[in-house]
């Protein structure tokens, strides 16, 4: 029984939310309560399956699920083998990302039960589940074209969710920016997929990696062009600096839990970027140049994120810019790791940089997500987003302000919370490459502390404002979801060694070791 479940878990993880998403509008007509229970069941079912699959993948290694057949390969009469079937490939890195997405979806759903009220709520949950499907699919697929399809599912449902409340039109402005930019990025992913198909007649990522890495005499111009297109599109979707302009807008205008969910969505694109860089191309591309490029992107993101956050007066846009800076840290760490990969054997600090980067992916979602949840609650209670018109809320919203304080400490990278655990790994590793880099990274963290102390002071501290005198504490479900996130963050902060050894290191090994990925997919041919 459990063995069958584990075997079919990959497709069930995608299929269960997809099915529920489309029967939800029907249930919505019958019973509102039934609808909520059904959504919760779908998300919890996914989360449980993910945890079961997680244990299996850590113990037994990579898992490949082929749709519509025993084996992904089809042998022609001439003896030519090629993996043509659609596959889901789950290694330690994908299951790490899937774990993040499904956990965040669970927390976001609890929050939304309290946050989203009124007409059209059924559609909200349909889109919510579709967004979850897009993310999970991107993180599990073993084939470039399906990556594009899931990327589009993710973009379309996120765009619709950002402008779920129209208000005075600003959310639609953010949405249209988001959808134009994401569909452009997705089209270039498709174009690059076409280029690679024309070059190698393959779409399967493992088989492509095999062809690209076994090529002698360097890559052709077309494969290099495809790499650049994929890199640019996924960096854009991940919200790295020169292409970050859509990110604060959409984070700032989306409803509470969706801002947090969008962070997980950008991490899915980041995962796709890692797959393209480390698994498909690896050392076939000039890793020192690309690593350097990623480092520069990271530094620019950190710089722009922090400086633009300083001057914002809209509380959610401010956190949006802080999110850009956090993505910058991940790019910095990954860039150092990729740079080190070019020297052949991965050195100790290259490994450490990657550990820091991968760990920071999780921490980024948790920290920024918690801050978005708290500000979402503040906006829900006060209907006010301007920092200058808020104040003294700690008197009426005790628990929320406590959770904000936790998020603040974590995002600024102070011990004993999780932000410190991953940032210290990044500082240490990039110090070896250049001390200047780690000075900039630490300075940016200090700025981040200053910015968030400013928000904390102006929103929660000070005398009670007369305009905000009748504010009460946020609803219980909102507090519960914040408490779950804070609990995880404190646990990560107190036992970072345990997390790095058991959660992060398998993911890093799966990321670096593309040989195992290729041989498992090619299956001894």
């Amino acid at each position: 029984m459990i063995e069958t479940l584990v075997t079919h878990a990959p497709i069930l993880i995608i299929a269960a939310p997809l099915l529920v998403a489309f029967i939800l509008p029907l249930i919505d007509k019958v019973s509102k309560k039934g609808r909520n229970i059904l959504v919760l069941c779908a998300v919890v079912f996914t989360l449980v399956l993910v945890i079961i699959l997680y244990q299996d993948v850590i113990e037994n290694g990579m898992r490949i699920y082929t749709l519509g057949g025993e084996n992904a390969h089809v042998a022609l009469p001439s003896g030519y083998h090629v993996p043509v079937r659609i596959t889901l490939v789950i290694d330690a890195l994908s299951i790490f990302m899937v774990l993040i997405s499904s956990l965040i979806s669970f927390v976001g759903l609890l929050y939304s039960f309290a946050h989203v009220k009124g007409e059209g709520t059924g559609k909200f949950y349909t889109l919510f589940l579709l967004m979850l499907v897009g993310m999970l699919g991107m993180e599990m697929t073993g084939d470039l074209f399906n990556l594009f399809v899931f990327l589009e599912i993710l973009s379309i449902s996120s765009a619709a969710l950002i402008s779920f409340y129209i208000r005075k039109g600003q959310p639609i402005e953010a949405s249209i920016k988001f959808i134009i930019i994401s569909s452009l990025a997705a089209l270039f992913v498709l174009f690059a997929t076409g280029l690679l198909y024309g070059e190698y007649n393959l779409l399967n990522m493992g088989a492509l990696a095999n062809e690209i890495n076994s090529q002698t005499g360097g890559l052709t111009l077309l494969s290099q062009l495809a790499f650049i297109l994929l890199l640019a599109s996924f960096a854009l979707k991940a919200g790295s600096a020169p292409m970050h302009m859509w990110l604060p807008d959409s984070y700032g205008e989306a409803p509470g839990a969706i801002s947090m969910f969008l962070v997980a969505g950008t991490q899915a694109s980041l995962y796709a970027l890692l797959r393209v860089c480390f698994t498909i191309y690896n050392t076939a591309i000039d890793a020192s140049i690309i690593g350097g490029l990623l480092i520069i992107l990271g530094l620019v993101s950190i710089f722009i994120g922090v400086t633009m956050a300083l001057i914002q007066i809209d509380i959610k846009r401010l956190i949006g810019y802080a999110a850009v800076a956090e993505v910058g840290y991940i790019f910095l760490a990954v860039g150092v790791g990729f740079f080190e990969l070019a020297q052949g054997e991965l050195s100790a600090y290259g490994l450490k940089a990657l550990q820091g980067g991968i760990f920071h992916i999780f921490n980024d979602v948790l920290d920024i997500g918690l801050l978005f949840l708290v500000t979402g609650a503040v906006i829900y209670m006060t209907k006010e987003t301007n920092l200058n018109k808020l104040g003294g809320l700690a008197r009426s919203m005790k628990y929320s302000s406590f959770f904000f304080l936790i998020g603040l400490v974590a995002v600024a990278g102070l011990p004993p919370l999780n932000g410190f655990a991953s940032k210290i790994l990044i500082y240490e590793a990039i110090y070896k490459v250049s001390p200047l880099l780690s000075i900039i990274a630490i300075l940016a963290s200090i700025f981040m502390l200053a910015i968030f102390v400013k928000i904390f002071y102006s929103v929660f501290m000070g005398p009670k404002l007369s305009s905000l005198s009748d504010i009460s504490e946020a609803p219980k479900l909102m507090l519960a979801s914040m408490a779950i996130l804070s609990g995880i963050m404190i646990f990560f902060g107190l036992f970072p060694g345990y997390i790095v050894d058991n959660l992060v290191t398998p993911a890093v090994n799966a990321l670096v070791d593309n040989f195992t990925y290729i041989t498992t997919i090619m299956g001894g041919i």
Partner: protein
Amino acid sequence: MIYNLPFYAVIIIIAIGLYVIAFKRNLIKIAMGITIIQSGVNLFLITLGYRKDGLAPIYTHLPSQTSIPEGMVLPVPQALTLTSIVIGVAVLALILSFIMALYREYGTLDTYKMRRLKE
């Protein structure tokens, strides 16, 4: 040489689409730009799938004297194009409905006049 013509067309179409998105201020025109790029990418995929003297992989429609798999093409690019067209329609519908809602709120389609987010 003549066989490369569709690829030049792809490059020109995508360039026109990018130009429209980058330099036009009207949102409807930007939506058109996205569609033009979509068509360019679809044309690219279809062109990739073309094989001279290839046969469509439908067993019942084969010419009578051919031995079975000989000359049949693997219809992957065509399948990709169909999927991409369907996705393209969904994206276009979403963009157009956003444009309608935006026009209702702002009374303009000029991107330079949409600055409520920046205030």
